[in-house]
């Protein structure tokens, strides 16, 4: 996803962000809030207009899990 020109993201009261993040992508999500809320299934429409998962993770456990991980149960 091409980066847009970054501008400062205004956090909400009480919102804490301790990690690095893609500001342009956050802004893109903010700009498309209306599409996300109204465009996906609000009236039973199954076809999203924006922001759905486009890539699924099909890694098996050997790839998904590494050192320090133990699958416990279902």
């Amino acid at each position, binding site marked *: 996803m091409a980066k847009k020109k970054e501008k400062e993201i205004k956090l909400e009261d009480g919102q804490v*962000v301790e990690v690095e993040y893609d500001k342009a992508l956050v802004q893109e999500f*903010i700009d498309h*809030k209306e599409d996300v809320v109204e465009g996906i299934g609000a009236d039973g429409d199954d076809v999203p207009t924006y922001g759905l*998962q486009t890539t699924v993770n099909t890694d098996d456990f050997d790839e*998904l899990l*590494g050192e*320090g*991980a133990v699958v416990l149960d279902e």
Partner: protein
Amino acid sequence: MNDVRKTRPVAGNKYYIRRANGGYSGCIQGSPTDSQCNVLANCVGYANGATNEQKGEGREVYPLTCNAENFIERGIAYGLSVYKNPEVGDCLVWQKGSTLSGSDGAGHVAMCTDVLERNADGTSKVIITSESGYGASKPFWRTQRTNVNGKWGAGSGYTFRGCLRIPGYKPSTVTPNVDKDIYKNQIEVKITDLRVRTDAGTDKSILGFASKGYYNYYETKDASGYKWYRIADGQWIASNDNWTTVYPAQPKPTPTYKYKIGDKVVINGQLYGNADGGNPGKTVSNRVTNITRIAEGHPYPYNTTGDLGWMAESSISPYSPTPTPTPTPTPTELKVGDTVKIVGEGRASSYGDKPVAGGIGWTRTILKIYKGRPYPNQVGNKSGTTGFYKDSALKKL
């Protein structure tokens, strides 16, 4: 807000059912599609549902419907906080590959349901996550994750990004149940969701609910017609034969230990991260070391030089050095002039082609040595040659 989910969501839970099917979720359909919750199997469908279920407003307040690795940005856009270290209720986010575009992998998300161990600075060290995965053979599973390399148990292709947290979210403070321990005062809760109150008495505030299992208790009181047990500070449960069983602590036998600190031992077998057998580590074979610590009352009580890990007594044997073999004495080489006793037959020629020479028991001197010949040692005295002998027929005096 609700407590974080620790069990598989079931039919009718709208946080895990797509809007098109009457639920709250804007996520894509899972695969294989779960018959009860159709956003499963999929890590995104599960984490989105669990986060919004915690929020508990009967709608999808946080539409975490995007690729897993973009949860951080989507969460920030919708007012979620992001922390470096997981706590109960957080959504852990991993990136796959080097980009956030999804072109090199979708990433992964999972919900932190328990913190099992903490580091000295109070940050989480071992956690349990609840999660799902697209294409997985089961729609829900739990994973114990130890942060040994910054990845929180993810595979080598993943990078841990951070944890989404609902601002102001506080998980239930009801103390978790514990393993049965006959040496501690314990009470077993036999029903689901026994009320936990801030003090003894049915008029006291309900703090939360104790689930089935064992709880240590530290104090008792009689109030409101019940005997009450304090299972943590400010946490009391009422006892009744129908829903609890009380197990007073039994006296603990004084443990005896075969080894003491400083003993030199040989260790063989599994090492553990703690004396209770948690965090299994590497195994060692025939390693000679010394006992450095003993954690009394634990099943893996011994630690050794270098803090390799904790071991059971059965994995340890006393060190006994291998006896040094007595060196075989090197035969003393005979030389001209040596005084020798004749102990075997010789010959009248160093080539051995002449008659037998006697003299057994006589003391003589080596007059000359013909190296390479079968009977090389010419033996005699002032009177002349007695005979020619092999080394084995002569004893040096």
